[in-house]
């Protein structure tokens, strides 16, 4: 019995040896000139931390979507609006993540970009409260984008004043425009719903929700 085991072991060892050919998994690094990489640290750090901001907003919207989907809350229109907002915020995070490599960034410390974002809250008393908090959240994100613009336009400290025209233009043109449009849209919705609530209370929220669901607002 022992002998059989020994023979099997030897055969297994030989087989194992013949299959475990060493793979060449990594390639040697290439020497690439670095003088095209011009972003400076105070600016890149702000851009990096914006990823977390956007994802925290995404998860807060996701929690709003979850809350308004509940059977006892039953506001499918609100839920739809917030689930869409969640995926939109995730896209914003991805837009920032994709901009940085174009400028030669994100060759290291990639894991630190996303640090377990969680929703700011998980339940709301009424639809209008969630809309108001969404507007505040957007205003907060807008302020953060403005902070990046300030840091990238005239970086202090070791940034030695490198004005990052392209990034500043991108943030002002693409991101801020979207923020301002989103904010005014939310403000209008709060206004419409607020007026309906004033006269019709719960019925107002019920009707507003169905309008949201059918894309009539």
């Amino acid at each position, binding site marked *: 019995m022992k002998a059989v085991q020994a023979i099997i072991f030897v055969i297994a060892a030989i087989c194992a040896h013949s299959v475990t*050919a*060493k*793979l*060449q*998994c*990594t*390639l040697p*690094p*290439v020497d*690439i000139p670095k003088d095209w990489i011009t972003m400076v640290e105070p600016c890149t750090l702000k851009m990096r931390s914006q990823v977390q901001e956007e*994802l925290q907003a995404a*998860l807060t919207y*996701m*929690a709003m*979507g*979850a*809350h308004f*989907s*509940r*059977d*006892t809350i039953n506001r499918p229109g609100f*839920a739809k609006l917030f*689930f869409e907002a*969640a*995926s939109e915020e*995730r896209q914003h995070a*991805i837009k920032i*993540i*994709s901009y940085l*490599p174009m400028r*030669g*960034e*994100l*060759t*290291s410390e*990639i*894991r630190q*970009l*996303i640090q*377990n974002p*969680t*929703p700011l809250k*998980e339940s709301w008393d009424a639809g209008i409260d969630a809309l108001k908090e969404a507007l505040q959240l957007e205003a907060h994100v807008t302020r953060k984008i403005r902070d990046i613009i300030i840091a990238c336009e005239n970086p202090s400290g070791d940034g030695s004043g490198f004005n990052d025209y392209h990034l500043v233009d991108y943030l002002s043109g693409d991101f801020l425009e979207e923020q301002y449009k989103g904010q005014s849209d939310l403000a209008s919705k709060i206004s419409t719903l607020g007026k309906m609530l004033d006269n019709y209370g719960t019925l107002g929220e019920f009707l507003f929700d169905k309008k949201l669901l059918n894309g009539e607002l």
Partner: protein
Amino acid sequence: MKFLVVLSAFLAVSFAQYCYNDVVGSCGPRGVELKNCHAKYGAVDAVLFDLQSYVNAHISRSFDYLLMSTHFGNYEQSREGFEKLFRKLSDSTWDDAIDLIKYIAKRGGAMDFAARKPEEEPQDNAVELYELGALARGLDTQKKLAEEAFTIHSGATRRREGYHDPEVSSYLEEHFMHRQAESVRELAGYTSDLKRLLSENKQASLSLFLFDEYLQKVV
């Protein structure tokens, strides 16, 4: 624990939990809460925590995939095909998380973003991986997600003490399991191909380039 289950079953029988009884009480002079007017039935409560954890696992994995994709997008790696592959995994994992949340709500549950099953610690949680390592990590992750669906499924299928909930099982089968099997198979195929390409000749750099180009086309 068993005792509690038996006790709650007893209570359930002695005070029949009907929405209609609540409504009659509420519309009459007594005025009671409508605490039985909800969508919960079957064994959804028994698998609720598992479903919530499953959502949170999807969110975390979606972020992992996004970061792996980012790594392949930088100029040093420059592997557009791998970038695309992991981006696609990130997108589908994110969409699945939202789909699961909607499902939990459909069955009368609430989402809890803090619910997490204790997970087996990964060897490392690096996202800056070389090509074959990333495929292997992707394969392991997809398998783990697929196996967790089996675990929840079995929790909903055990035929004892009212734990049977075929609606949950059927949802998992239709919306997750078949797609997961495809995803696992696809990644296993890529891993086998690339493994062979990296061992049989000394042309690793060209093999990786061509394989990446192939991924750009097929993903």
